[in-house]
């Protein structure tokens, strides 16, 4: 499903080079639930952006559904983002001027979906996150949890293959966070591949596989559900360990 082979991402900052990813290799299967953990600046967001086709690897190969996407044109990559990938962000990124319904319709706007079909599909997606009754509210009239659920409805309305969530609960209280995680895990259970970037060990432990990153490389992989929790300290900082992965 997702295959990365020796992926490097190097940013140029003035004269110097910053190695955000140092030869990451990774495979994520269809329908997997993977958590990416690691301290700030460890490269997990960069990795997520590359997987989400928002960024390109400087070196290395990235195959999505068996297709090399690193070298595709910007136009083709926008099509992949539109149809195959759903994004959920920490700060929701809902457009404040649009209603919940309008926000969910956005991706279909770019796909040129006819208005009636758009309305119907958006309503269905909002129903699936339990927000049918809030569809005509604007984001500022919704609670944080509700906003994130609207964002999830928007992420899945195009029926993507992968859902990429960048700190999806980072801005939510515990109860809303659990609601949101239950929701995206239910979607994962129906076959949606799920990659969650998080600082929160409790969230990470819900994943079938935890990939820990540090300093641009993969530190280790474990199955959280089988008790690899000792690799992730309660503060969310990984314990030092010989470099693995890359």
């Amino acid at each position, binding site marked *: 499903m997702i295959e990365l082979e020796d992926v490097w991402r190097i940013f140029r900052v003035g004269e110097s080079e910053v190695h955000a990813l140092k030869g990451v290799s990774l495979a994520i299967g269809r329908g997997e639930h993977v958590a990416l953990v690691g301290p700030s600046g460890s490269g997990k967001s960069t990795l997520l952006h590359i997987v989400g086709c928002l960024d390109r690897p400087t070196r290395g190969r990235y195959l999505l559904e068996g297709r090399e996407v690193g070298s595709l044109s910007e136009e083709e990559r*926008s099509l992949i983002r539109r149809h195959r990938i759903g994004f959920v*962000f920490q700060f929701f990124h809902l457009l404040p001027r649009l209603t919940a319904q309008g926000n969910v319709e*956005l991706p279909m706007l770019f796909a040129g979906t006819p208005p009636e079909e758009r309305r119907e599909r958006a309503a269905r997606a909002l129903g699936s996150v339990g927000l049918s009754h809030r569809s005509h509210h604007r984001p500022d009239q919704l609670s944080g949890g509700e906003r994130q659920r609207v964002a999830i409805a928007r992420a899945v309305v195009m029926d993507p293959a992968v859902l990429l969530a960048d700190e999806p609960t980072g801005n939510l209280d515990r109860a809303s966070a659990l609601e949101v995680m239950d929701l995206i895990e239910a979607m994962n259970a129906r076959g949606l591949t799920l990659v969650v970037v998080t600082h929160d060990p409790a969230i990470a432990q819900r994943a079938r596989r935890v990939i820990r990153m540090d300093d641009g490389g993969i530190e280790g992989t474990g199955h959280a559900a089988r008790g690899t929790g000792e690799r992730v300290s309660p503060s969310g900082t990984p314990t030092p360990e010989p470099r693995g992965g890359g």
Partner: protein
Amino acid sequence: MRFLDLLAFAAGALRGHRLRTALSVAGVAVGISAVVALTALGEGARRYVVDQFAALGSNLLIVLPGKVETTGGAPFGGVTRDLTLDDFRAIARLPRVRRTAPLAVGEDTVHYLDRGRAVPVLGTTSEFATVRRLEMASGDFLPPGDPEQGGSEIVLGMTVAQELFRSENPLGRIVRVGQWRFRVVGVLAPRGRSLTFNLDDVVLIPVRTAMRVFNRSTLFRILIDVRAHAEMEAAKKDVETLMTERHRAEDVTVITQDALLSAFSSILNALTLALVGIASVSLAVAGVGIMNVMLVSVTERRAEIGLLKALGAADRQVLAAFLAEAVLLASGGGVAGLAVGAGAVRVFVSFYPSFPASPPAWAIAAALALSFAVGVGFGVWPARRATRLDPVAALARR
């Protein structure tokens, strides 16, 4: 992306900043209304002049003494012979000439009882009424006859008649011009200013008499009504040849109305274009205003642009969305400016009803096209900046 969706999306974004949107629209509206109002006035001025010439008669040739040329080389260079009644009679015999009227001009006071009024006195013949398309309010024009005969008939302009006679009927009354006595035979219908003379404020007497009154032997002008409009140039040649023969020198100037008209017309067109050029400056300023607003908008909405890209908007769709905003701003200003400009012209015309000012169709079309072009022209650069935005950096911020 569907076109209507694109417009709705852009309009929605503009509604988010009502004041900013209103000010940008107002900027373009000022420019467009200036273009519309100034072209309307310029075009009005042109039509006013054209109408004036049409009132003169479209087949008119005017012969005036003298020739514009450099003089002084030869000892007797520059001496010109005057126009005389003999010249007039010779011209009248030319085959292409339908009618012709001599014109001698002086200024004197016209008296009736104790009232007097200083006015231009035009000496001419009965043909003058047809050549200049004059209409009578009452009575008749000067009687036909040999121009050498003279006579004591006088025709009054409307203002002269009203001032001298008040409510009295002037027909048949005796007026004095200097020491000379004349009998009023007619009053001209109101005509207004016609280029050189205000025909409401003149009196007309037989040409021979006028030359005697003013003690001169020469004519001021000879007016010619040519048989067919197509023969204007040929008739002009005929007159020039004839006068050259008679005077043994090319010492008269013959002007056609078309030449005058096209000279005036091109002057006024240039004037209109200059006005439009000035108005366009304000339009360019408004365009820069739009560019500024769009740049601010792009900077402010970095997160939105990043989001749109993450949701699968292609670069050209982001470009189209921002360009649509700029074009909506500019076109909105165009329509508003058209309304304001046309309204201003209406108000102007209600104060000066005789001035035929109205925005020509081409100006309306050009104003709308121009506002659209301003939107595209000044919107492209900000929109391109939006597409170049790195979505990762844009999304990283709140």
